[in-house]
């Protein structure tokens, strides 16, 4: 080959590359979010699993809810609505027996009917294998089909919030078909539900994007608003927001410091409280850190924290200071307890002196360095220094590492971020003497246990008041230093979408309500 022709070949290759690139550029722009029939949303994390009962509540809900209908449905107003079950309610007193009547016309995506037997089998699978079952459904004794369309749940101890457990947020009520239960390992690559959509595995790639198409056998076709729903996983927050800004996607959860950018780009931004964050004073008997055994010390640690300043710094207007473990709208929320411990270092020092620690003390603490969960606890530790309390912090970089350390009973204090739940569910993790990552020493307070038992067995009309009393009591005992409520924030294209709503304990419902404008 002559020198010239070689030289030209190289030049030719370059120009081919440039031409392809420029054609592609036009293609890329035109494709956008896939047209008006397709809903494209961004998730910051890939689902841990597509098995509905093993998936993470919160981050994995979209992936599960599209393909799996739940027995009941939570509305943005906090009201429970019918789902696969038309009627439901406790039988007798004490909240121990719960009946569900299924709708007659519901079918799984494979065409087989949703029977009471199938529902009972699915709930029993969830009880045995569910991610949260060991705690949230531990009270349940049996789930049986009592007729072709009736299911009975029996509990050993009162379970007052079964309707909340069986809605689309907590995932345990996602009904899996007999075919799915026959080989649960297949649930990773296909869906086996009775939801409005089915997972299209040919158009999905694990960890990258998940495509859902309408379920032809769905019982309420008016709920199906899209020909295709695509969930695209983008772990880098700014790339994800850019994708929505440029029309590549329509909806995305964002973090507080992205909200302004989203607004100035012409996107709609909505928010509502989702979780509370702070420091758990887990060693309430003073086993490892003796001072924590004294309630005055725990209260001092609460008074030493400037919640307003920390909340403003970390969450800006997307967070509110609080000292309790509940959210407005949930049953245990006590509005005047957000400011139960006003910032008062002098009072804190006085309380420490009364307890016999005028010069403060030091203790070990563990924080989770994932998703910025360590920011608030670190700020708290800084502020404790002014009353002489120093903290040796261990930061874990994985969730598994954090959970292992949290339950090892070697850390008297633990940073926490915990989603807002009905107080009955929160109490199982935090307030009752069961070992958990939030109560590793299984702290026991007989008065609190009795208050919670009374609330759990009470009729619905009295529950909220009783749970508020329990919340007041545990906050007075200063079992933890809650600092702030954190908002769940979403940015979306409101020229294309309608029905995007968020509320405390409620996520935008892609399966039913997010629709084209």
């Amino acid at each position, binding site marked *: 080959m002559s*020198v010239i022709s070689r030289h030209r070949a190289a030049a030719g290759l370059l120009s081919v590359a440039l031409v392809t690139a420029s054609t592609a550029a036009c293609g890329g722009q035109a494709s956008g979010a896939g047209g008006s029939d397709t809903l494209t949303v961004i998730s910051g994390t890939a689902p841990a699993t597509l098995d509905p009962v093993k998936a993470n509540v919160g981050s994995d809900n979209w992936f599960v809810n599209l393909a799996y209908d739940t027995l009941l449905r939570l509305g943005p107003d906090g009201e429970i609505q019918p789902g696969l079950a038309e009627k439901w309610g406790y039988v007798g007193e004490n909240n121990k027996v719960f009946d569900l009547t299924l709708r007659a016309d519901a079918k799984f995506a494979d065409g087989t009917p949703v029977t009471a037997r199938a529902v009972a089998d699915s709930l029993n699978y969830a009880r045995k294998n569910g991610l949260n079952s060991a705690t949230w459904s531990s009270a349940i004794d049996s789930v049986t089909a009592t007729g072709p369309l009736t299911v009975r749940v029996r509990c050993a101890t009162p379970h007052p919030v079964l309707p909340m457990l069986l809605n689309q947020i907590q995932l345990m009520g996602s009904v899996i078909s007999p075919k799915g239960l026959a080989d649960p390992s297949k649930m990773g690559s296909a869906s086996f539900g009775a939801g409005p959509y089915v997972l299209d595995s040919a158009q999905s790639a694990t960890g990258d994007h998940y495509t859902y198409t309408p379920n032809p056998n769905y019982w309420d076709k008016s709920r199906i608003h899209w020909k295709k729903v695509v969930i695209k996983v983008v772990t880098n927050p700014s790339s994800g927001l850019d*994708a929505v800004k440029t029309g590549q996607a329509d909806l995305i959860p964002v973090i507080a410091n992205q909200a302004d950018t989203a607004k100035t780009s012409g996107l709609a931004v909505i928010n509502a409280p989702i979780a509370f964050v702070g420091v758990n004073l887990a060693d309430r008997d003073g086993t490892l850190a003796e001072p924590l055994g004294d309630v005055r010390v725990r209260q001092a640690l609460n008074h030493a924290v400037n919640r307003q300043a920390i909340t403003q710094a970390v969450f800006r207007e997307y967070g509110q200071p609080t000292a309790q473990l509940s959210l407005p709208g949930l049953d245990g929320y006590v509005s005047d307890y957000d400011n139960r411990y006003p910032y008062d270092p002098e009072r804190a020092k006085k309380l420490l002196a009364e307890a016999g620690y005028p010069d403060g003390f030091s203790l070990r603490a563990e924080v989770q360095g994932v998703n910025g969960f360590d920011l608030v606890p670190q700020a708290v530790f800084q502020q404790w220094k002014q009353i002489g309390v120093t903290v040796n912090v261990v930061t874990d970089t994985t969730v598994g590492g954090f959970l292992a350390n949290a339950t090892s009973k070697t850390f008297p204090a633990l940073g926490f971020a915990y989603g807002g739940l009905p107080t009955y569910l929160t109490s199982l993790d935090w307030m009752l003497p069961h070992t958990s990552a939030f109560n590793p020493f299984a702290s026991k307070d007989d008065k609190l246990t009795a208050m919670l038992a009374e609330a759990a067995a009470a009729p619905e009309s009295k529950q909220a008041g009783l749970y508020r009393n329990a919340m007041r009591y545990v906050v007075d005992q200063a079992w933890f230093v809650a600092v702030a409520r954190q908002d769940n924030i979403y940015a979306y294209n409101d020229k294309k979408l309608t029905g995007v709503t968020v509320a405390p304990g409620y996520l935008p419902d892609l399966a039913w309500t997010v629709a084209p404008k």
Partner: protein
Amino acid sequence: MSALRLVVRRLLASTPLLFLTSALTFVLVSLVPGDPARTIAGQHSTAEQYQLIRDRLGLDQPLPVQYWNWLTQAFHGDLGSSLFSGEAVTSILSNRLPVSLSLILASTVVSGLAGVALGLLSARRGGVLMRLVDGLATLGLAAPPFWLALLVIEVFAVTLRWFPVTGYVPLEENPGGWAGSLVLPVTSIALGAVAIIAKQTRDSVLDTMNKDFIRVMQANGFSPRSILYRHILRNAALPIVTVLGVLMVSLLGAVVFVETVFAMPGIASLTQQATIQHDIPVIQGAVLYITVFVIVVNLAVDLAYVRLDPRVRTS
């Protein structure tokens, strides 16, 4: 030495490397604190549930036994399955391999072509162009790919909307879309590399130009074009090929970040995620693929030497 003998010798010498990297990865991952069973079991699990998961995953067995089990399976082409999704590691990796390979190969081709062209031009013309290449080289080296990635996204994806912000389009699905999805990631990876290769090319070419045999050829009336392409460039090519080979392997680091920023489902970002999650089978599989890639690149560089330099062939 014949090329075939070289290939066989190189491959034989690489086998211990495969064992070494896989064993080393196993040990390193086990030293990192964190427990995949704990993550899978979640915050509400009981001690029994947690223990069941450990048993199922074989995490209670001694480390050498775990490694031996992995190794024997690997020999049969079975790299196990992800501790989290349960998907076969070979299937996960084969879905993700084309993404990372596209990025690395396209970046190498683009930086190779553009770098050599710029280097040659500046060697021949000198003056302003030479200083410009030097300046660009400094800039390219100083500007890290992650910063360039954010910059090109802001300009070409968000403001001008010429290219998509995120995502990868498989080549077989839509060749145009594939190229489009690669333009920005490859630009951010290749800019620094272009600068390095341009400078290397310029220096090697200038170095060769001053050699006696070139002067003799010039004195004998060979055409300048023939001298440049047939003799100077060929002689200068050895160090350039070396740099390209090293670059191709070192691009893996940049690819980790670029895959994350552009949300491209490649092996580099997978390895990062799997490491955070402690998903040992996925990490082992990915490291195996990456080691094979490095071996292949080194082999290709050696073969290129053989082709370019007769002295290597006869030695």
